[in-house]
């Protein structure tokens, strides 16, 4: 018996009992005609999978929206989070007091984030429409959340606000783990700042970058609360993503079977993404 299992045992025990067992149960709904309230279950095999392939327009639409929602949120969260981590890493006067404030959004419950930004975007209660009008983004102070062409930007803004601190904390911790001696040695060798960043910093924090990008993409694509609070998937399904659609299917239509089919589809796509990123990670590490 390898010693590793001794270190892993507590983790595996927790995950097995409270995550894996429920997960398998959740996946099994896909093969049943299942009614949560009465508890009746009838095995139907792959019948419910046919629906997703043939006749579900909303699924296709929500898939496109999920891609847009996830990639935009991720892009801005990562870019701003990384920039902020670099700034904090370089240090400045008063950092002790400013740093904790910058982490605040991560601690706000997600439904409150939704309510807060709904308030900010509403022309009756919030300043944003007037700001947009002043800088020429809008002709008149209107609520972006009711415009089917641009509504998605509302939840994305809220999500970016919420997610920047995550990347900042993680990348800052990674940056702080780089031994200062390496930079010292490099500067003696006459390496420019940009070169040091490109050839020392990035490769050394690459594992953290990859794992945070992977996990955040998974979380964001599964993250429904902000959208549910801000737009409920509307207007006219324009902000419907797969996970809000799953939520509606499970708890509004009470169709757990089909909701599970949708979840499995999402799971497969995320696995593909994970595999791709895993490949990149292996390559990057072998280069270092």
């Amino acid at each position, binding site marked *: 018996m*390898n*010693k*590793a299992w001794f*270190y*892993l045992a*507590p*983790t*595996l025990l*927790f*995950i097995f009992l409270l*995550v*894996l067992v*429920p*997960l398998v149960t*959740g996946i099994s*709904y896909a093969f049943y005609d299942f009614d*949560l309230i009465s508890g009746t279950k009838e095995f139907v095999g792959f019948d419910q999978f046919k629906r997703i392939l043939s006749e579900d327009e909303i699924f296709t639409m929500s898939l496109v929206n999920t891609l847009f929602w996830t990639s935009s949120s991720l892009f801005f969260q990562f870019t701003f989070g990384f920039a*902020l981590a670099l*700034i904090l890493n370089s240090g*400045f006067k008063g950092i002790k007091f*400013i*740093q*904790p*404030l*910058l982490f*605040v*959004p991560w*601690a*706000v*419950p*997600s*439904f*409150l984030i939704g*309510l*807060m930004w709904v*308030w*900010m975007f509403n022309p009756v209660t*919030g300043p944003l429409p*007037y700001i947009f009008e002043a800088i020429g983004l809008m002709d008149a102070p209107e609520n972006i959340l009711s415009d089917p062409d641009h509504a998605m930007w509302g939840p994305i803004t809220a999500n970016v*606000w919420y997610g*920047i601190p995550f990347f900042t*904390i*993680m990348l*800052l*911790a*990674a940056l*702080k*783990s780089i*031994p*200062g*001696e390496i930079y010292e040695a490099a500067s003696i060798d006459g390496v420019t700042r940009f070169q040091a960043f490109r050839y020392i910093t990035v490769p050394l924090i690459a594992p953290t970058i990859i*794992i945070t990008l992977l996990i955040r993409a*998974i979380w964001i694509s*599964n993250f*429904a609360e902000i959208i549910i609070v801000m737009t409920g998937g509307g207007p006219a399904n324009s902000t419907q993503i797969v996970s809000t659609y799953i*939520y509606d299917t*499970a708890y509004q239509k009470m169709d*757990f079977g089909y*909701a599970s089919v949708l979840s499995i589809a*999402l799971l497969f796509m995320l696995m593909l993404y994970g595999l791709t990123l895993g490949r990149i990670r292996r390559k990057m590490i072998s280069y270092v």
Partner: protein
Amino acid sequence: MKITKNAFLAGFLIFTLFPVFWMLKISLTPDRLLFTEGIVMWPSRITFDHYYAVLLEGSFPDYFINSFIVSFTTAAMVTIIAALAGYALSRFDFKGKTIIITLLLITQMFPIVMVIAPIYNVLTFINLVDSLAGLILVYTAFNLPFACFLMQTFFDGIPIELEEAAMIDGCTRLQALEKVTLPLCLPGIGATLGFVFTAAWSELLFALMFINRQSQMTFPAGIMNFVTKFSVDWGQMAAAMILALIPVCLFFAYIQRFIVQGLTAGSLKG
């Protein structure tokens, strides 16, 4: 360079704090003025009634204590357990390692709404519905996968040679871990603690679903009391939110030392 940096920093501060400022403003605005004054940066008259109501009239002090117990215990549990697992994933080679990593990842990919009902059944089975202990166990389980990866990544960044040197000097593996590796890993431990603490502090769905009694509620579930079917008590809700952010700021102010100190505390030259 410095100007650009300061400009960026100012931009981040405004973006991050403006919504919080807006909530602060709402929490200080008397109810009657909330919708009658239009969009103003500061109300013509302020009141502390909402803070008074939250702190003295409702059960919010209880909710805060519950939230603190749950978040703190979860953060400590997860960090300890994940440090062990991350260490194993980083330092040992064993059959099934890829499977474990894949499994940990997959647990993150399935929507939470689909597993709430099965978890509820598990909790019923072990008789821990409606108790803080049950909530702590669930939070621990759900925060573990990412924390394991995180700890693994940080252990990976610490040269294994240091540990081996200590073991040659006569330390056991655990001693080497405690004396050499963990101190070097402080930024990672600090980040993990901070991450899990805030995740548990702000978690709503599980708290709402698995807790019934008012006396066991955490603050995010308690804040839902302000959202009734046809109106939201904005003033009190904003006040509760502002109050809830204070402990988090203090917690971050405390743990940032670990994140920043990390390497200077340990010695790499050994």
